[in-house]
């Protein structure tokens, strides 16, 4: 369950962003749309606790993010929020398996080999588990990024333009995977995108309008 109220972020003395209130029930999914520069990514980063709110409230599963200190926020994010970026941004020093295992470690959990291998099988990349990142296609890399985001069974999955650099076929596969995995985890899924191929999969759409105020 997720709800936001009067979320406001001020970057410097020149610009500030206000975001619409949002309420998602358990396991509800939505797409976040808006023109470039409206703050979709900023909103996702605020929801993930990567940015501090200047005012307003974000409540995830009855936890108000503002109430956490930095260490608590990092732990909460690791255990409850799965993040997927436009580019897969996997760690090239590690192989496929280790990239996923790293997410478990950083969330303070014990490495669960069985769980990781099952997930990689589900995402059809099990055979690649010991391969280096630079040997993978974009579609495969994005699937590993999804595995990394899902391995800790998060309650909220945030994806920022996850299909922007993919072809139609891979974009469809990734969208299906995200939706399917979110359902399996009973997690809320929010995808920020202006990709029509993805928008079509969602019933609920939250639009962010350009509301940046120039103060000086």
């Amino acid at each position, binding site marked *: 369950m997720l709800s936001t109220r009067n979320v406001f972020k001020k970057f410097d003395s020149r610009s500030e962003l206000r975001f619409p209130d949002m309420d998602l029930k358990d396991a509800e999914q939505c797409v976040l749309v808006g023109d470039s520069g409206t703050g979709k990514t900023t909103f996702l980063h605020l929801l993930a606790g*990567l940015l501090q709110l200047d005012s307003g409230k974000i409540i995830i599963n009855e936890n108000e993010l503002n109430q956490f200190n*930095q260490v608590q926020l990092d732990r909460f*994010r690791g*255990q409850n929020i799965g993040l997927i970026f436009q580019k897969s*941004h996997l760690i090239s020093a*590690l192989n496929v398996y*280790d990239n996923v295992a*790293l997410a478990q470690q950083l969330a303070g959990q014990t490495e669960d080999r069985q769980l990781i291998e099952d997930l990689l099988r589900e995402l059809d990349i099990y055979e690649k588990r010991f391969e280096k990142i630079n040997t993978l296609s974009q579609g495969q890399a994005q699937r590993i990024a999804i595995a990394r985001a899902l391995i800790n069974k998060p309650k909220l999955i945030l994806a920022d333009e996850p299909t922007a650099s993919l072809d139609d076929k891979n974009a469809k596969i990734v969208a299906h995977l995200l939706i399917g995995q979110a359902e399996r985890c009973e997690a809320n899924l929010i995808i920020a995108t202006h990709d029509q191929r993805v928008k079509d999969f969602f019933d609920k759409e939250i639009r962010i309008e350009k509301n940046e105020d120039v103060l000086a």
Partner: protein
Amino acid sequence: MKTFSLSWKYLWAKPLSLLLNVVLYGLGMGIVIFLILAQEQLSGNITNNSKSIDLVVGAKGSPMQLILSSIYHVDYPTGNIALKDAEKLTINRFVKTAVPLALGDAYKGVRIVGTTSKYVEIYNAEIETGELWKHEMEVCLGAFAAEKLNLSVGDEFVGQHGLADGGYEHDEHSKFRVVGILAPTGRVIDQLIHANIEAVWAVHQLEENHEETEQTDSVTGVNFSQLIPSVNLHSVDSLREITSLLIGYRSPMGAMQLPRYVNQKTNMQAASPAFEMARLLTIVGVGVEVFEVFAYIILAVALLSVLISIYSALKDRKYDLAVMRALGASKSTLFRSIVMEGMMVAFIGTVIGLCFGHLMIELVGFYMGSGSSFSGAIFSNKEVLVAVLGLMSGAVVAMIPAYELYKDDVSKTLTAD
């Protein structure tokens, strides 16, 4: 996957950079370790060999030369002193022990020391095979000398004049016979051939007589060599000389009185091993310090190299670190991971340095022969300190770029692309 494993995988991802850093670090650390071991083993050797010898009395000249030639057997003697003068000194009230040395001959570069059995007592040496020399022309070999010369009990040899290898051979009638071999002590006695002091006089006396006979022979054409009587040593006591006298004091007062007495009231010279060796170590120490500075410069360069490589690696990994933060890593977790990388480089470099330092000292020992006191198997307490400091420097150096993490804005980095 633990922080340790993550740090190692990041290092392993750039093997050439890792190799350069650890080799550079290992080289600096190796030189530091080598200098520590060399200095300790050298000063240990110096102290060990001059233990129980408070004063050396010999001919006037350089006191250090006197010490080096009479205790360490690495330099030429300053000259000889009259036996009667030396004998007078032995009855001085400050003298507890006095061991005479007569140097001047060698065999294949190994010095022959004319002395008494008290010389063996100074070094607590024990017989391993055979017995100590008793009669004229009997010799007892130090362990290393026996090994080097490949001599065993019962073998005979003719000494050579002079202390270096290549001197002319003495008369074939003056053959030495090996009667004993000493057990190894790790001290200078291992490297010497020990004989009666009378034997050294006899060899030279025989030679002088022989030369006189040869001269007669050449003049008259008659061979007198069979007629040469055995040397009567006691008939020429007043002319006899020794090289030096190793003295042990009866009481600490001896240190105050005896050297001054010898230097001022006799035509001999007294030199204190402790004082001269301290002086020598100070002189050698200047050279060691230069090497030390050099080693620390290499270490500093290695640390700088570690710093630069971690800095540049962090620039490349800025997004990785931001992603890890997004995955729930705290700043302190990432800080630890980066510091661990610096410590790993320092640890591997330190291990390489320890091996390198010990290998170098072992090679020096090997090059100098088994009689050398340098050994790579000896460890020093200072090494532990240096290794700990080395590890800490690796950590401190890595902390500098790791600190930059605290300034990073994760959100900005993630949206920078």
